[in-house]
């Protein structure tokens, strides 16, 4: 129990530290969002008014206090019309209002999260299915045509940066062949899945490449073990041995890989979402950074850091449940 509490405390600390560091970096950069909001041609007096309206004229510690002070509220909103919090039960989470879009950050994040989740889940499926199947097949047909074909493809997957894969997939499958939409999100679920194919492939391919080799190598070790040979000797079908034992083994490393890769996935998502005009967290954060939309940036960073920390926490928890020794460490 104390292990759990300590682990939770560490997680909370990590998120706090990440958000604080971002806040400090953003607020000491020698520039002023007010001028961006007012536009390049706005007159100084008008810029000053906007700065005042946004509270950007206050000292750093006041803004910091206001940001964290307002983050979580237990009271109901004073004025529902200007409230920028999202409420679950009686607890409100308030990330402020976007400077540029003038919408509550929680609302913007709420809108951007489903597309990114869809993309992430699909990419993960691509990674696991493609990686798992390819890895199994490659291992089963070791040194065959299939094996080296797979290995070659994984090498491309690992060596081609996301922006290169994305542009190529878009050009070839969307423009030349016309099988998928060039970009966009779509209104219905059917459209969305159709539109998600290429970005998910872009994002999943890198992971799939990595994962294929993971599975292939695990399998190769596995297939040389006695009990597998015994199973085959007993006349069990080859594919059944492969699927039964392979699949289980293929899913095992996934837990670790997902936890580790979330950060990388985010980096890839930024580029991918930009290329395919996918209205997710990546697009939101790039625009926010370019335009110095502070509240949106802090919101995104808070969300990302929490996700990574939560994923790691769950992985640790899973290990702890499976292996009691971890708890004593």
């Amino acid at each position, binding site marked *: 129990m104390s292990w759990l509490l300590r682990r939770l405390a560490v997680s909370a600390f990590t998120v706090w530290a990440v958000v604080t560091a971002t806040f400090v970096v953003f607020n000491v950069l*020698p*520039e*002023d969002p007010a*001028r*961006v*909001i*007012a*536009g*390049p*041609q*706005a*007159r*100084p*007096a008008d*810029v000053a*008014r*906007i700065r005042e*309206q946004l509270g950007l004229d206050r000292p750093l510690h006041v803004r910091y206090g206001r940001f964290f002070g307002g983050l979580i509220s237990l009271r109901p909103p004073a004025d529902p*019309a*200007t409230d920028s919090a999202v409420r679950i039960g009686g607890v409100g989470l308030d990330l402020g*209002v976007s400077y540029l*879009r*003038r*919408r509550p950050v929680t609302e*913007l994040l709420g*809108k951007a999260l489903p597309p990114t989740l869809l993309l992430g889940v699909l990419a993960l499926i691509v990674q696991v299915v493609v990686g798992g199947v390819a890895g199994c097949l490659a291992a089963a047909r070791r*040194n065959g045509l299939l094996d*080296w*074909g797979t*290995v*070659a*493809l994984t*090498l*491309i997957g690992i*060596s*081609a940066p996301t922006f290169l894969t994305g542009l*190529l997939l*878009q050009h*070839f499958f969307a423009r*030349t*062949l*016309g099988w998928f939409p*060039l*970009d*966009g*999100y779509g209104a219905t679920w059917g459209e969305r899945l*159709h539109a998600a194919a290429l970005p998910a492939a872009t994002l999943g391919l890198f992971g799939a490449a990595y994962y294929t*080799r*993971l599975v*292939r*190598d695990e399998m190769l070790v596995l297939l040389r073990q006695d009990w597998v040979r015994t199973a085959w000797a007993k006349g069990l079908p080859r594919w059944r041995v492969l699927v039964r034992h392979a699949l289980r083994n293929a899913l095992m490393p996934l837990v670790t890989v997902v936890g580790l890769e979330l950060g990388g996935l985010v980096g890839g998502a930024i580029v991918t979402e930009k*290329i395919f*005009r996918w*209205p997710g967290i990546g*697009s*939101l954060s790039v*625009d926010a950074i*370019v*335009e*110095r939309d502070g509240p949106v940036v802090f919101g995104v960073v808070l969300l990302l850091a929490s996700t990574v920390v939560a994923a790691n926490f769950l992985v640790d928890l899973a290990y702890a449940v499976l292996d009691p020794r971890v708890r004593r460490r």
Partner: protein
Amino acid sequence: MRSIPRRPEATRLGVAILGVALATVACEADVAAPLGPRREVPPTQGGVLRSAFFTDVRSLDAATAFDTASAVIEGLIYDQLVTYDRHGKLSPQLAESIEVSPDGLRYTFTLRRGVLFHDGAPLGADDVKRSVERTLHPDTPCPVPSYYERIVGWGEYHEGRAPELTGVRVESEHVVSFQLAQPDATFLHVMALPIMAPVCESAGRTWTREFSRRACGAGPYRLVRFEHGDAVEVERHDGYWQSGKPYVDRIVWYLAMQPFTQRFKFERGDLDYIRELGEADSLLYRRSAAWQGLGEWEQPLSTFGVFMNAELRPFDNRHVRRAVAFALDRDQLAQVRPGHVAPTGRMTPDAIAPEAVRDVGQRHDLDRALEEMRLAGLAWDPATRTGGWPEEIEYLAILDSFGQQAGELLQQQLARIGLRVRIQLVGFPTYLARTGRRRTVPMGSVGWNADYPEPSTFFEPILTSRAIQDEESQNASFFSNAELDALLARARVTTDEAERGRLYRRAEEIVRDEAPWAVAYSYRYFELWQPYLHGYRPHPVLQQDVRFAWLDRGARPARAGLFPWRRRSGRTTLALATVLP
């Protein structure tokens, strides 16, 4: 645990696949044919018009949105009291007539009868006053309230000391007047901005952040959908005051779309009209015989160049500034983006330059540049490559802008007169902060868009001593010239066109000779539309004004369905053939 591939074939295959993929990219240096025939058809109602922006639209609230993309959509949703006609001249829109008192201090607008807002309410004089007060209210984040500082009572109202803007008076149900404290030759121009558009009372009397999503005015289209980063959709306003107009049922404007995606969608008929073609793509279309008459250059209302900080060495010496202006080879810049970059040596763009200023301007002359360096005491000997200014000079540009490429060429051009330049690329916010700070940036890329189509907008806000501040200076050159200040002040209150022409000519001469900027080019876009789109041409002032375009729906080919490859099998086979050797 993991192993490496044991076979070189694997690597070879990998490279081969990538090569093929790249090769399919490689062999398509041509444009698709226009979709459908071009037929002369009278204006008819119906259809959906689609276009796209590279950027997002920030807001659709008339009071706060001031960026280019927002302004285009606002042009669809709002009508103003006054606007520009096809020749770029001011003309009444929601006003039937405009009367100016002889002293130039009082503007009286008589409104059209029967104008309906999108919510069905009729437009009255009190709506005009309410909308103006909403925009200029102290709590409204309007970016440019000071454009209207000459309206009587502006200060008291904008500071929150008065409950109403006394200079705006409702004379009768359909007559409203604006009283100015001083004459202002630009007043009708600032009244033509969407920021002054009458808005529906039902969308809120005061500013709230919700307004942008319920944007409601008296323009030809009403807002149906606005998703940031995705699309804006507007629908025909049936109660529009010009009967029978507009023609198109719906207009969809996609947001944040990459230029090359725009081109591909345009080729497929997913977009009917585009503006943000890449330079290379626009070249292809301009050369294609099939597309003749379906595209046109827009008229740029902006000027770009290089600012030089007159308070920092070596540019505190006017000879060095003049040397840069002479050394800048504007034709080379134009060759890098043929067509899009139009070289110029003068502040006011062609579209709004009075006749009197047209022959004034800086020009390229390497010998004169070397001579100016000599006069500055920094003589440079091209043969021995000695002399010149000893230190590197920082050149600040916004990343992902043409200012970067211009800087890379300028760097080479200035090396020929003994000035060494180091390029610094920064994001837009940093650029604004640093160029506005006194004694900070010696030189950099600079551009200015006309706030309204009038020459004063290219001098007053950026080159007068009034525009100099320690922070947030709009005058990035920190250039101060008493003669320029005085003659611009005179031009602002002068209504005599010939006199104004003479004053602006002198202003151009001062810029040419004192060189606070090395004026370089104007940047323009090539607009392109499918043959079934009628009634559209680039407007001289209003960007992308598609309000009264119509579609020849019979000529528009049917759209591809969910499985578009079925209809394009020929091409698919070809593409597969390249994959399977």
